[in-house]
């Protein structure tokens, strides 16, 4: 394809109007040339001989008549060994290496290879000469940290390909040819370990898409037991500022039972990313014995970085997630916050003078959000193994009011809703997921009947609490009061979880099953109290003991002792029943 050239005829914020010469395509990348810098831009609208292009950089200094060089390529990322442990910006520039090059500040027009070109990787061939393969099938493998990284037939190659040549095992850089493939028209394709893929197009080189029905254990009790997430499922976390969205995602990124975590810090605080990137290398993942960083990729386009690259950042993140899914791995993508990306769309739409929808968001907001979450899923790969991409996005609704376009559009497409409540975060009841409003369509790690029972207690308890505010404790029956105390008890010892306690911060699925059953049994016993004060005192004591229990490792001897102690405490008030 011949590459087109263009001339700037308009500049409005980060939006350029460009008159172009030869054919160009929607979402094609072009560079606006400014002296010795080239500013990356993307075509977002074409009208006759004019293209509107959003620039991923500050546009100061651009002039009418300035040249634009089109590339013929869509916005793409590099895929290959060496992505794990890295910290990229939204356009996949490695931030630490940029800092080595440019110092303290990001410099516009500075782009670097995402995958280092000089690193050598130990390639072991799997496919044999003469084998016929299709896109996504394995040619060979490379050890990348704790995983066996599959080198696959490039996703963009169509049809059935025959392996003409494949190298013997050896060390190669990502751009060296490791195989030659012949397509059905007889054309030979040289394949290296690195391939490129346009971020806005889902990778579909698998054989089947399945229903997400296996729990993804996050080790957050309120999530796994009450509002579970499934491998390959999608969920959202809307909440007002300061309610705990980011902390919830940080905890999840540490403890979730998945192979790879892709963190997309999209339009939020740089400081929060710094915490992750400084701490993760120090935290040992008990499952692998290696640092958490080894299973993590961070895409970081924080709030003061160029707005247009925010949108790119979530697509970059999901593309990397899909890539590792193709290796039969379970990948979790955490995006914080999807509202910032929606706002970036709104800014661009405003500059394009499109007809605005609600709160000035563009009319296509819903379909864009839907097709993003649609990229989550569990798939059977062509070799029969399974991989998944799970997507969890935080939402930052204006005024903390969920009745706004981004939250509503997201709720339509996700499988679980973890709504954070200001009342709970103000009361320091963390995680502040509202236990009455939230929902999930996925299966829980514990028995459904038990969960339904507990839900009933929580609902009734909350109603009684409301009543008591009006009629006082005096006007409440002891039976009602007991239901209220039980609901507070479940809240304190099971829903709330101490993110700063070494044991309580993560509860395995087995432990959740065990503890939840034990609590249900305790609460099912008939109990009798002389008066409300006695009841309250009893539950305070029971809460204290259960919290101690939560802080003890399951394999420690005290674990059984404390459970015994709980049973005895309950026995005392149920014996004289």
């Amino acid at each position, binding site marked *: 394809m011949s590459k087109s050239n263009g001339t700037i005829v308009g500049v409005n914020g980060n939006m350029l109007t460009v008159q172009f010469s030869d054919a160009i395509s929607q979402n094609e990348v072009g560079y606006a040339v400014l002296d010795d810098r080239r500013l990356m831009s993307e075509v977002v609208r074409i009208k006759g001989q004019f293209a509107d292009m959003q620039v991923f950089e500050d546009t100061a*200094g651009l002039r009418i008549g300035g040249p634009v060089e089109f590339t013929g390529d869509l916005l793409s990322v590099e895929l290959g060994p060496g992505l794990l442990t890295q910290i990229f910006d939204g356009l996949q520039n490695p931030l630490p290496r940029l800092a080595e090059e440019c110092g303290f500040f990001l410099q516009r027009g500075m782009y670097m290879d995402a995958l280092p070109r000089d690193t050598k990787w130990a390639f072991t061939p799997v496919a044999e000469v003469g084998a016929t393969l299709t896109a996504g099938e394995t040619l060979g493998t490379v050890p990348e940290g704790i995983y066996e990284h599959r080198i696959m037939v490039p996703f963009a190659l169509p049809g059935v390909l025959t392996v003409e040549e494949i190298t013997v095992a050896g060390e190669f850089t990502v751009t060296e040819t490791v195989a030659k493939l012949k397509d059905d028209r007889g054309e030979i394709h040289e394949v290296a370990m690195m391939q490129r893929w346009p971020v806005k197009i889902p990778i579909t080189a698998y054989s089947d898409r399945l229903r997400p029905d296996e729990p993804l254990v996050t080790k957050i009790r309120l999530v796994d037991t009450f509002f579970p997430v499934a491998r390959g499922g999608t969920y959202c976390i809307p909440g007002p500022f300061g309610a705990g969205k980011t902390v919830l995602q940080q905890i999840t990124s540490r403890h979730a039972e998945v192979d790879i975590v892709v963190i997309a810090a999209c*339009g939020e605080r*740089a400081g929060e990313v710094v915490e992750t990137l400084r701490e993760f290398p120090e935290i040992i993942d008990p499952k692998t014995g290696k640092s958490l960083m080894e299973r993590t990729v961070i895409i970081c386009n924080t709030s003061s970085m160029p707005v247009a690259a925010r949108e790119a950042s979530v697509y970059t993140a999901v593309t990397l997630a899909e890539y590792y899914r193709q290796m039969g791995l379970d990948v979790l993508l955490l995006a914080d916050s999807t509202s910032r990306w929606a706002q970036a769309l709104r800014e661009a739409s405003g500059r394009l003078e499109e007809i605005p929808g609600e709160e*000035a968001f563009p009319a296509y907001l819903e379909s864009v959000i839907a097709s993003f979450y649609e990229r989550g899923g569990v798939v059977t790969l062509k070799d029969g193994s399974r991989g998944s991409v799970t997507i969890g996005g935080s939402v930052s609704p204006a005024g903390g009011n969920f009745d706004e376009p981004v939250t509503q559009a997201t709720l339509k497409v996700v499988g679980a809703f973890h709504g954070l409540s200001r009342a709970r975060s103000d009361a320091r009841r963390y995680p502040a997921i509202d236990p009455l409003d939230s929902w999930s369509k996925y299966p829980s790690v514990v028995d459904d009947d038990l969960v339904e029972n507990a839900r009933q207690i929580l609902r009734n308890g909350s109603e009684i609490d409301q009543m008591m505010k009006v009629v006082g404790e005096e006007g409440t029956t002891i039976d009602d009061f007991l239901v209220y105390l039980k609901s507070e008890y479940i809240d304190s010892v099971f829903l709330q979880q101490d993110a700063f306690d070494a044991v309580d911060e993560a509860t395995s699925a087995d432990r959740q099953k065990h503890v939840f059953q034990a609590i249900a049994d305790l609460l099912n016993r008939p109990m009798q109290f002389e008066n409300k004060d006695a009841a309250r005192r009893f539950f305070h004591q029971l809460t204290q003991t259960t919290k101690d229990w939560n802080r003890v490792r399951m394999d420690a001897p005290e674990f059984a002792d404390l459970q015994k102690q709980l049973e005895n405490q309950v026995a005392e008030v149920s014996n004289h029943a």
Partner: protein
Amino acid sequence: MRKVYQEVENIAGNVINIRARDVAYKELAVVESSMGTSLAQVIRLQHDEVSLQVFAGARGIATDARVRFLGHSMRTAFSDNLMGRIFNGGGLPRDNGPALTDNLIEIGGPSVNPSKRIIPTNMVRTGIPMIDVFNTLVESQKLPIFSVAGEPYNELLARIALQAEADVIILGGMGLKHDDYLFFRDTLEESGALSRTVMFVHTASDPIVECLLVPDSALAVAEQFALEGKRVLVLLTDMTNFADAMKEIAITMEQIPSNRGYPGDLYSQLASRYEKAVDFDGAGSITILAATTMPGDDVTHPVPDNTGYITEGQFYLRNGRIEPFGSLSRLKQMVNGDTRDDHRAIMNSMLQLYADYKSTLEKQSMGFRMSEWDGKLLEYGAKFEKGMMDLSVNISLEEALDYGWQILSECFEPMETGIQSKLIDQFWPKDNAGAAEEKPELVEA
């Protein structure tokens, strides 16, 4: 010699349009008219039509005004000569000192590479117990004071600035009342801090476009000092005026508003300023304290709401006090573990009890019966408000912690505080043990 254009085609709001070639986006121009001379900045280019935002406003600009382009974008001078000086938003002197033209730096520069930031670890001492004990301020934090108009937020800012031991103080005033401007100047002068202060001040009577320049000028200068290794404290007051200036300009430019008239990029605009707060890996730091007045005392108003989503917590100033609820320093846990062993315990326990006091107050107002426990809480609440929340209290963190123990011991038994026994043994005032019983029942509803 640069070409002079003398044919203004349109004038709307503060924006003028001319036809010109070879003009760069964001380039500055000088506009001369009968009303005087003003800087203007290119905000839109379309073919040969150039839109310029005139800093001093378009009032009185004639269609034959002279427009001359300068070939660079907005800059401000940077050197130690800035210290003790007062400028307007555009960097021109407001005091009687000379204009500075040496070492010009671009304002509104690029963002810091996140991998060059470090996790902040230094507490900023303010002498205010509601901050030091309960919501510790941390070097490099960005934190607004949410307040209703009329609250003493400027006094609070000035006081923190004087106690904070910063190397350099930079004040950015937006829509400042002239009295408040004089207040800052005099307070800093009296305490001898003016010599390490730089002020960029836009007052309510100055042109609105200059208001927009204040944070960028202030932060650009702050950044340079921080790169020299200095610990810089930036005070921005009032950011709601800054947001309102953006709103006004967006509306006159016929941009589609997103929420109550504010432009859709309000979040990004505020964030690009607040995110200048930084602890550099291998240089100094910038801490940003801002005042954000809440129209109608409504925290869901777009300005405080967007701000809360950007900053690292907020202080609520209400009735002359920093409210313990709603106020939050998100960075406090990075420092309050290393101050004194009892810091976190006192913080948690006193707040918990104060929350209980609040619900007792509610019960009392509903006319419900008050128990003995309620009586203790009522006594405690009064002491807490007087001894900790009152802004006239000015004591060190350690004194405040000691005082906290004293209040607790005057009102409660040790076990009623929920503080772990190890700390009780170490810190509970001995002479007050059991004092609670001797107290008469304070309140009986």
